[in-house]
């Protein structure tokens, strides 16, 4: 395997029958080094090879005039300490379903890159304390970075959760990349109807191969919340601040990633979080669906032909043409302010609705609710048949529309279902709350 190498340097490596991980002697007229041939980033040039020297440093050597030779490599005698999975049947059963992402990634020393590689079992192994919190089952469902998640994956996640609950899980943890974790959380909130136990999505902003990773605390908190939380809802658990002390569980339909890199990137928008987890205690914030009662009902169909379009000054009206022609079924508009669009778009919107598309209006303000009665342009959109998304996040509105269109084809049912609060995504009242963010 000679990953990452290309062009001239690849020729050189192949000529000498070298592989990544081989011990190599490399010399030219100035230098002579022995070290381990390391993988190279695909983006780097084809003029250098990388050696790991005995002091641990990697250096790049120019192949110009470089003579390489394979050396006999000594077998590494060191192996990780044996792992014994603790099992304690007296603890609540919790399932960890792994889907990939940073919480489940490590540096691949073959490719030199962070990739989703740690299995649920690996995670459990690297955080053995999990065994003191719950009796754990693990499943590797997917192994994808969250930017590559598609609505179909939501369906398989929902079905997997359902199976684990049928098998007696008192809570389910899903490890997930953070980029689209909010979308998945919303999707599962709609798909898992009449949920009897907590389903906690958890991720990390620093990969778990790093000593400072937030993965450990987040994962412990997620398992703890899955095992003990009084609520039976889909939540996203992440750091509540930059410190490794408090964790927050956000309601799946109200959560948004609001920072690219901070540990506390996630925030509840237009609602209080479900709970705070700190010092081994779960403190809830207010109303929630209680654990127990009822049979889980799986409604895991999502209509993928829905788009999210953001309004902006100068937005060209014809961007809607391909959406209409290609036969999409729904459009979520991210309007400005209370839910407005430039009038130049009105003919396109009218045409879309006449063509049978469901058109929904959310606000790019994120905070607050749309109100399309205040200005005449808003009223005109309402008259055309645009459905206001209330205080729903645009992304939640998107996922909800996908879900609604996956449940029914009847226009009246669509409108009715969309306007109904299904999983705490919509409220009649806007509470005056101190927004918990940054």
């Amino acid at each position, binding site marked *: 395997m000679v990953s990452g190498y290309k062009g001239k340097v690849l020729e050189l490596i192949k000529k000498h029958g070298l592989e990544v991980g081989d011990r190599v002697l490399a010399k030219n007229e100035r230098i002579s080094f022995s070290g381990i041939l390391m993988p190279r*980033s695909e983006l780097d040039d084809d003029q250098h090879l990388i050696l790991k020297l005995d002091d641990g440093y990697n*250096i790049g050597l120019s192949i110009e005039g470089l003579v390489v030779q394979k050396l006999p490599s000594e077998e590494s005698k060191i192996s*990780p300490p044996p792992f014994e999975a603790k099992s304690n049947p007296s603890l609540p059963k919790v399932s960890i379903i792994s889907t990939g992402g940073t919480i489940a990634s490590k*540096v691949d020393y073959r490719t*030199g890159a962070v990739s989703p590689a740690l299995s649920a079992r690996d995670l459990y192994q690297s955080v053995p304390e999990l065994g003191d919190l719950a009796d754990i089952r693990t499943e590797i469902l997917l192994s994808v970075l969250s930017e590559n998640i598609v609505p179909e994956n939501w369906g398989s996640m929902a079905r997997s959760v359902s199976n684990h609950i049928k098998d007696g899980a008192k809570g389910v943890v899903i490890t997930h990349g953070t980029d689209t974790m909010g979308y998945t959380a919303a999707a599962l909130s709609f798909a898992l109807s009449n949920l009897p136990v907590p389903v906690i999505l958890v991720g990390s902003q620093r990969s778990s*191969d790093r000593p*400072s990773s937030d993965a450990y605390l987040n994962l412990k908190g997620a398992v703890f919340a899955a095992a003990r939380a009084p609520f039976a809802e889909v939540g996203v658990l992440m750091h509540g601040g930059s*410190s490794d*002390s408090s964790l927050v569980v956000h309601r799946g339909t109200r959560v948004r990633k609001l920072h690219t890199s901070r540990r506390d990137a996630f925030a509840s928008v237009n609602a209080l979080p479900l709970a705070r987890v700190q010092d081994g205690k779960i403190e809830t914030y207010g109303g929630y669906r209680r654990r127990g009662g009822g049979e889980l009902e799986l409604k895991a169909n999502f209509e993928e032909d829905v788009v999210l379009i953001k309004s902006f000054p100068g937005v060209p009206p014809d961007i809607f043409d391909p959406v209409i022609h290609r036969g999409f079924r729904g459009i979520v508009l991210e309007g400005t302010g209370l839910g407005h669009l430039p009038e130049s778009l009105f003919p396109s919107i009218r045409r879309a609705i006449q063509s049978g598309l469901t058109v929904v209006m959310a606000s790019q303000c994120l905070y607050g609710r749309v109100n399309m009665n205040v200005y005449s342009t808003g009223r005109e959109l309402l008259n055309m048949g645009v459905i206001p998304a209330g205080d729903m996040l645009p992304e939640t509105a998107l996922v909800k529309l996908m879900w609604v269109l996956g449940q029914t084809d009847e226009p009246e049912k669509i409108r009715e279902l969309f306007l109904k609060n299904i999983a705490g995504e919509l409220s009649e009242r806007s509470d005056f709350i101190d927004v918990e963010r940054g």
Partner: protein
Amino acid sequence: MNGHEAFRGRNLPALAVESVNHHIKVGIEIHQQLDTPKKLFCGCPTVLREEDPHFSILRRLKPTYSELGDLDRAALFESERRRTFCYQGYNDTVCLVELDEEPPHDLNRDAVSISLTVAALLNMTPVDEIHVMRKIVIDGSNTTGFQRTAKIAFDGWLMDGEERITMQSLCLEEDAARKISDTPEMMTYRLDRLGIPLVEIATGPDIHSGEQAERVALQLGRILKATGRMKRGLGTIRQDLNISIEGGTRIEVKGVQELGLISTVVEYEVTRQRNLLLLREELKRRGVTAPRPKVVDVTDVFSSSNGKVIKKALESGGRVQAVLLPGYGGLLKTELQPGRRFGMELSDHAKVFGGVGGIFHTDELPAYGITEEDLRGLRKKVSATENDAVVFVAAEAAVGSVALNAVVMRASEALKGVPGEVRAFNPDGTTHFMRPMPGSARMYPETDVPSIVVGADLLDKIRRDLPELLEKRTERYIKEYGLSKDLAALIVDSPYAITFERLVKSDGLAPSFVAATFEYTLKMLKREGIDVESLEEGQIRDVLIRVHKGEVAKEAVAEIFRWLASNRGRSIEEATRALSLGAVDTAALKAAVAELVGRNMERIRRDGERALSPLMGDLMKTFRGKVGGKVLHELLKEEIRRRLEGAPR
């Protein structure tokens, strides 16, 4: 306690104290902060701050498996302590990168250039492509749990007299956070220092004495300074020393900040290793085998003890626990370094691993309120004879047990000789145990930072712009500017060399006056505790030009700097006004001169030129520091000439 003397006569040969020996091998590792405007991986300024931090956060670190699957020993050691780390920062000079809340930005190119310049001055070969690594350090000094470091160059040399000293490697790395406080539960660091670029230069183990180590360190320091891009002052340069003797083991002594201590540290470490080898011989002679880590609870023996520490520990629910070191009797008193006995090594291990305040052992007792009777009970309880040593601690049971296990481990290592470890130095040059030697498998690629190709263009530019070495510059200053040897050496060594040369060249100021201002006046003010660094180059230049023109008296320079330093952002005009310098208006001055001359006409007629000097003296009494001497002199001469030429009265 003078037990050692008696003991030495009985069992051990005299302490070995000898400094020069060709079996001594010393390598130096110099860490020097670079004076770049920005940090190595972010845009924050490289400033340390003393005022109250704006925020703080709490974190924990967890060790991870390295690529070889080996959980690094030193890393594990730190994590065993399961501490919380508190990080302090400032909103305007610490960003999300230091907080480990944002990926590192690209490697600072300015710092790369400086490193390559140093490498060239040390005759080293640069790498063709720079790769940033993560060196695992989980003592909390890096928020990430690793230090970012990159190898820049290798295999150079410098000469120490006739001897060639290898420069093994030069790395560019980020400095760690500053430790502010340290308790068993919480370690507090300040993030201002984290990320300041530093070069780490490691010599080969080619040095054979403490004096030589000191010379090499000095020479390295001067080469670094020649770049004009090094930070100065306390804490900006640190030396680690790797010391071994034949039969001994490589020991790393961390963080020696003063050059003058290097030879002492080497000398004392050589002494320590020799004494440990002698101790091993003595243990062998006695037929001692490795002690067993059997911790015995001896609380009942001390239940009514008057020992303060013991009493206090028992009152708060602690236990007294002991281990037996069979055959070690008397050996814990062995002096390894001046004032540091073998018992203290055991104690340091107990402190570091167990977090206890210290240990008691039978070789130093009775004392500290512990009686002969207590000791008899103790010995009986653990079945110790006079030939054995007993070590005990009073602490919470779990903590005490960890501490005593560490003691047994260290005592066993004495049978092998010198255990490899990292030591920290004490102000007197002796050292104490800090942590075990880190394993080698603790480097991971920093995948967030792209590699940098060191191109021929860059290297050509570095070679073209190589700075003048300090020795050369001194010679040139003597020749070109007529400075005295002392003054030239001083100015070259100071942070002002470049400014000095600029002022002399651009403004035609007298070199010795400029040099003296920097080296004598500013240094004097610094000694007074005045913040000389806050003076801007432009201000200094302006003051010197005014003196040159005679607008400001030479004597007033110090006063003006003093005022400017404590009134930041204010102008020189404001300074002179506030100090009533130059505030004397010309008319008043002329009148004063005329009056003085008038009063002394008789004397002037009598003495001619010779009268000038006492009159100047009188004028200076009134106007010293307010009007330049040159100006006074001119005025005086003119007035005299006017009178003598017979202007009518």
